[in-house]
């Protein structure tokens, strides 16, 4: 089936079998490998992307369901010379070790901060409950999101 959608602001098209998930579409048709194939059943959140302003597990959507949608992936968030405050704070605090959960973790956090610029620690934890990290534990991840939120609100100067 033919699919046309917007990915990171650019219109893209592909022809794929109906059983293709959004995750496979991104990785295999568009070479956007930031979203990871982790559990592939909606538990781990490594495949998290933002579809029309909400975070979803891209492994749990069929390509046919995102026809005409706007999808944001980690590749569209920033570039190497100009990090998003979340990326910068994750790096500064050493919030990631292997990095596998990073793209999903950062996109979940981005959507949280877009919807709620001043989240409590509990709200950050709730927003990240669908993103599993098996390296660092979550303390530094939650701290980095809180720091990024403060920076984005202008409460503290960017480091």
């Amino acid at each position, binding site marked *: 089936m033919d699919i046309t959608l917007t990915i990171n602001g650019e219109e893209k098209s592909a022809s794929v079998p109906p059983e293709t998930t959004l995750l496979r579409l991104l990785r295999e048709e568009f070479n956007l490998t930031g979203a990871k194939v982790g559990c592939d059943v909606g538990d781990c959140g490594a495949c998290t992307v933002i579809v029309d302003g*909400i975070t979803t597990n891209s492994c749990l959507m069929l390509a046919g369901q995102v026809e005409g949608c706007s999808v944001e992936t980690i590749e569209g968030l920033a570039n190497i010379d100009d990090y998003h405050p979340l990326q910068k704070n994750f790096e500064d605090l050493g919030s990631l070790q292997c990095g596998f959960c990073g793209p999903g973790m950062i996109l979940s956090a981005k959507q949280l901060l877009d919807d709620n610029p001043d989240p409590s620690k509990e709200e950050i934890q709730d927003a990240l409950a669908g993103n599993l990290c098996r390296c660092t534990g979550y303390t530094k991840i939650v701290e980095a999101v809180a720091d990024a939120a403060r920076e984005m609100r202008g409460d503290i100067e960017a480091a």
Partner: protein
Amino acid sequence: MKPFDFVRPEDQEGAISALAAHSPNVRILAGGTDYLVELKHVSQSPGTVVDVSHLEELKGIEEVENGLRIGAAVTHTEIMNHPLIEKYVPAMIDAAHTIGAVQTRNLGTLGGNLVTCVPSMDSGPTLVALDAEVTVLGKKGARRMPLTEFFVGPRKTILQSDELLVDVVIPKQNLGKPTAFYKFGLRKGQALALVNVASSLWVKDGKFADVRISLGAVAPVVIRCPNAESSLEGQEVSKNVIEEAGSIAVTEAKPIDDFRASREYRNDLIDVLTRRTLNSAVEMANQP
């Protein structure tokens, strides 16, 4: 996944026609948080998959003549953020918040949760405690039934392969009825309920009226506890009668013994959570 044909109808009527045309080798896809996982594991193609997640007719939350209508394809996140749910059935917000995590709540639908019909579904108890009804639509027309009749067994509902669940209606007389929901899972996020309970009630002149107690995860489907309910009906509100109702509720469930929890532990949870929901609902009822 095994290859299948994918149909994305433009409206509800198109969905019904597609179901009728391909039945019985057809399945409905809504949020996909359960069904796509199943599809990845089955060895046989379902034939045709009909996507209904985008259908306008299945989407709204609105006041209708006989109550509050919630479309079957409304997501758990939409329930959590809707002013009419907050106004009339805030216990549904508590229940929706315990489901999965943000990403799964953004995709998963109320109808999907009911149709999938796993015993631990978190949407069930609150709706059963509020005497919710569902509308099922097929080529031959619509039928309306109490939610308790919709559930048949684990992963089995009354829905035929050519029928679609279109909405859930909470009867008008129960909008604003004091209702409390508690779920006990092993974690806050991404956990199945070991036991979930909802109780609804009115307090009239200090006495219980129209008490409903509904349990999930402790029987083949979400159940009511008629004996515990009638033990409270017309009684003066007191700690003693609430404690007794908790003990009676335990006798009305048949929890399984499995790797998540023993039967004994689940029975203790039924007792505690039943009392807790009753106490919370009484507290709500006593607020001006």
